[in-house]
């Protein structure tokens, strides 16, 4: 930590005004607010590593266009009156690509979500593409069920719409209630959901690969995402993201200096 005092230039004392005039002032502030080049390279590379999901890009384009037209974006139904919409990419891994996939686990690190913000909605978005050799009678419904990971308790279920099912599409599951409850029970832990697809007569679990729910060969853009809609009560300043990002960088740098094996404790939002 380095103490720093900034004296705004006073009209009378020209000496102070001289230090902060023109070019020097903008260079001074750029160095102060812009991270050291080493951090920037790290963040620059991490920015390239992060590929915004098409859904998030469309959210941004829709709402920023609305603002330019003088409309308040949070009035849109799709925004659920939220002023923050965070997306988390599934970090789960499949076991063996060959064995039938009866259950699929989705894992999301939601540690950066603000504890103070009010959760107004949560959606699980899964990209599905039914395989060509998946044959069921037209009338037989396929039920997609969501279970809790730790005790396989049934949390929610939804009948899949298999109309022209061979076209790839995004299945959107409303997991708002589930999310609020699980987060209340196990805050700080990754948010985990288990999915299975069930046919009725006789009741049997489908191989999820037939519905295109396996992960191998799935590009980043087609990974499942959890989208959480929140509204923060207190006014947020632009600097909170700035400060938070740099604080994490500082921790990572300290971890590197301490050497391998010592994991920097991730600075949780709000502490």
């Amino acid at each position, binding site marked *: 930590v380095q103490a720093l005092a900034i004296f705004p230039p006073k009209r009378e004392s020209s000496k102070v005004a001289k230090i902060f005039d023109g070019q020097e002032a903008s260079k001074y502030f*750029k160095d102060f*607010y812009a991270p050291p080049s080493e951090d920037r390279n790290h*963040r620059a590379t991490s*920015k390239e590593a992060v590929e*915004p*999901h098409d859904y998030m890009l469309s959210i*941004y384009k829709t709402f920023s266009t609305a603002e330019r037209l003088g409309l308040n974006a949070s009035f849109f139904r799709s925004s659920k009156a939220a*002023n923050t919409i965070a997306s988390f990419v599934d970090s789960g891994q499949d076991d063996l690509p060959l064995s039938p996939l009866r259950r699929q686990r989705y894992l999301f690190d939601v540690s*950066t979500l603000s504890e103070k913000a009010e959760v107004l909605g949560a959606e699980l978005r899964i990209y599905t593409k039914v395989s060509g050799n998946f044959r069921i009678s037209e009338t037989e419904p396929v039920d997609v069920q969501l279970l809790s990971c730790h005790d396989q308790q049934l949390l929610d279920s939804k009948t899949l719409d298999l109309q022209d099912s061979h076209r790839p599409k995004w299945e959107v599951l409303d997991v708002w209630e589930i999310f609020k409850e699980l987060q209340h029970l196990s805050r700080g832990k990754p948010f985990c959901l288990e999915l299975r697809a069930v046919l009725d007569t006789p009741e049997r679990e489908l191989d999820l690969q037939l519905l295109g729910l396996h992960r191998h060969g799935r590009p980043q853009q087609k990974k499942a995402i959890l989208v959480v809609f929140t509204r923060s009560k207190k006014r947020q300043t632009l600097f909170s*993201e700035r400060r938070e990002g740099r604080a994490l960088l500082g921790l990572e740098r300290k971890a590197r200096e301490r050497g391998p094996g010592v994991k920097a404790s991730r600075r949780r939002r709000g502490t």
Partner: protein
Amino acid sequence: AASKTRHGKRHGKKSKSRCSKKPLHVNFRDLGWDDWIIAPLDYEAYHCEGVCDFPLRSHLEPTNHAIIQTLMNSMNPSNMPPSCCAPSKLSPISILYIDSGNNVVYKQYEDMVVESCGCR
């Protein structure tokens, strides 16, 4: 001969333009914030500049306090500074950024664009 500034005014003598909204283009690259902000990388924020002198125009929506301070400034400028030209109405913008967990987040930030200026 006195050299003219960009407004064609006598050098050094700032014209007494009244409080009004002026352009201010913000470039997040210049701020070094393009490592966490995905979009927009720049936007028009505007700023307020100019003098709040007597009599105050109604469109400047002065507060009662600003009216009193302006009156006292007009009576005794050395004793009382004029009221300040500041934003009276601001609007939000949407920002798509990467948070500290490398997640992509959309957020609507309040008070990012000056809609109108006033004397305060």
